[in-house]
């Protein structure tokens, strides 16, 4: 192959390669720039579901970031949310509709509906989270 055509061949190969590399930079960068489908920075706040689905005097445990959390609707209808990690040894607490308390099955620990530890081994109250409504959905956030 003579030099000129070899040079032209190499030049177009190079151009193609560099072009391909530029695409290989642009694709990740553009994907990065487009926000991912999941919401914001995870642990700040989380949607838990439709507000009207949670009846008074009931509670649900849900995953809030890396920890379980408890959302309750008191018998009076108020929504409250707490960390569901029992402050004794970390078991997951649940809402007891019959006795209207938050209960930990592991060692029979009790918390009142404000998260205060009122019976059994737990040494501290449950941390409380903020509950807000947005478009009919319950949003639980850690809040400062």
């Amino acid at each position, binding site marked *: 192959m003579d030099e000129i055509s070899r040079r032209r061949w190499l030049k177009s190969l190079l151009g193609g390669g560099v072009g391909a590399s530029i695409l290989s930079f642009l694709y990740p960068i553009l*994907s*990065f720039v487009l926000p991912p489908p999941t919401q914001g*920075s995870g642990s700040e706040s989380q949607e838990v579901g439709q507000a009207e689905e949670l009846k008074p005097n009931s509670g649900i445990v849900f995953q809030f970031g890396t920890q379980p959390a408890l959302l309750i609707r008191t018998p009076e209808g108020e929504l409250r949310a707490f960390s569901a990690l029992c402050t004794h040894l970390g078991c997951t607490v649940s809402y007891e509709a019959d006795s209207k308390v938050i209960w930990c099955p592991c060692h029979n620990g009790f918390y009142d509906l404000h998260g205060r530890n009122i019976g059994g081994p737990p040494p501290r109250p449950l941390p409380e989270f903020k509950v807000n409504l947005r478009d009919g959905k319950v949003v639980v956030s850690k809040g400062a």
Partner: protein
Amino acid sequence: MAFSPRAWLDERLDLAPVREFVEHKSVPIHRHSHWYYLGGMTLFLFVVQAMTGILLLLYYQPSEANAFESVRFIMTQVRFGWLIRSIHGWSGNLLIALAFAHMFSTFFLKSYRKPRELTWVSGMLLLFLMFAFGFSGYLLPWNTLSYFATMVGTNIAGAVPGLGPFALRFLRGGDAVTGATLTRFFGFHVAILPAVIGPVLLLHLLLIQRQGMSVPLSVEEECRAKGTAPPSIRFFPDFLLRELMGWYLALAVLAGLAALVPWELGVKADPFAPAPPGIQPEWYFLFMFQTLKYIPATIFGFDGEVLGILAFGVGGLMVLLVPFLDRAAAKGMRSKIVKRAGVIVVIYILTMTTVAYVANLAR
């Protein structure tokens, strides 16, 4: 007439001097000219840092409550977030390593001699600014290592006599390392330091364009003896194409590191937890850190640590002023003392860094 962008611009801006410059910029080629690549490589990695940093800015949240989670978000939820963040971390370290290599190569080749003293000084300032970038950036993920390394580092700054307490409060935004420190370091890292490094970098590069590449004394002597100038190649496109090879390889290395040795997330910083054993700063500070550990508590009645810090300060100043201290180089002669001092410094840095790593492993 066919439209030519070049002609359009030329009409308005007179690109003739630019064209002149581009056509005539050349790079001398000799047995030491491979070292010339280091400067361009350092610049390339700096650009990579700036670009990945800007991308990270789109998702990072600089508050005590959110910083760690936002970095986790980038690593796990954002598409290619793992790639951008790991590259930012690795490239930062590679950048400083290369900056050291570039500095030592110009040192031993005596590129700092007249008329390039300002290039050396601006280059040293760039290195110090990069340390500042590294130190401020290290806190931003707000994990245990970040938090305690920052605490140790700012404590050392605070130990300097006179300015120390002021420096400590200035750096920390208070008396302890808190969310205020994080915000402040973020401000340094993305606004203040870039604003400062910009003009210094521009100066450094402009000086090089103006003065061309320095040829080592040995090559100069040979050419003088032969009565010729060293052979050279054009910068555009020849030298640049060669540099491009290096840059592509660097990108491949960075991508490989991002995939095989991802930058770790760590554990969110807990200011109330005790410091884990073996907290040490990033590797480029290790030789100083390890030295301070070996200095006795008091020397002739003075605080040993303070003396150590001051010694490093004086050392840094001497390195900054090397072109003015090395009288021989100014006259075009070699100084054995300066060369030996440089060798000792390199060996010292390498040894102390290794010792720090081994000592930490042993623990």
